[in-house]
């Protein structure tokens, strides 16, 4: 139930990373969510879809799961 807060934090990281790499439009964001991270992947995807804005306004999440407690952004795609 804290996925909205996680999605907000992710959006902040995406925006900062896009700016660092000179991406004006981010089309996809690779993230890694572990089974033991306490985060429900589907809820995180939905929350991100609602919150996404700015350079990440059209970004979709490309999610990879692990058995651990991972919760990280891994790559951005865009132009």
């Amino acid at each position: 139930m804290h996925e909205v807060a996680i999605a907000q934090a992710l959006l902040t990281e995406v925006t900062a990373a896009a700016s660092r790499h000179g991406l004006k439009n981010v089309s996809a964001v690779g993230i890694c969510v572990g089974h033991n991270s306490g985060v429900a992947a589907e809820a995180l995807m939905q929350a991100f879809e609602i919150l996404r804005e700015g350079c990440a306004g059209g970004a979709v999440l490309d999610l990879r799961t692990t058995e651990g407690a991972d919760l990280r952004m891994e790559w951005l795609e865009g132009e």
Partner: protein
Amino acid sequence: MTVRVEVVERILRANDALAAEVRGLLDQAGITAINLIGSPGSGKTSLLERTAALLHPRIRLGVIEGDIATTRDAERVARCGIPAVQIETRLVGNACHLDASMVQAALGRLPLADVQVLFIENVGNLVCPAAYDVGEHLRVVVASVPEGDDKVYKYPSTFAWADAVVLNKVDLVPVTEFSLETFTAGLREVTAAPLFAISARTGEGLAGWIAWIEAQQAGHVRDAARSVTATGHDSAVVSDKETG
């Protein structure tokens, strides 16, 4: 042209950075902070009331209470004579957990010079608080007998991160199907952290819990002193807290 760039970063990077700042501030103030996580009704506040009666002011306590709404818990704890501030998360998006920024703001409302052990009672929830480092040194998970002896099997990662586990309401074992053996076996699958089986209502089993807090506080102060000696100045102690 579409490009792909590697940007490996923890999603909660900003919170973790703030948590490290909070921990540095607490280290400088000589405060040992304990993040108390447990379900609603597990008895976190009752445990704090009992702990205050047995430990304060021999070791001076302070409390940050996290709830969705009301200042009831902070008022309960304040009646024990210890400084307590309430975070009502309904004022910050109804958050189901505390984060480092909320704790940082609450610290400004506490008389830090008068506190040796700070309890941060998280919002009653066994899932969300586990993801957030709030700047604590130690994490304690509170479970209780009526919740069932299979609690650890259902929430393994929350218990795996605990530095200690308190099992409250053991006075109710005779009137439930609860098996302490089953609970302990589940716990030992994920952690070797000490287990304190207590009743905040009757007071049984609290001696071990109190001794553990005292030992942790003494150890933290000793480590902080050593770190100051080693670096030759009293800069913020670098915590060995695992942030993931």
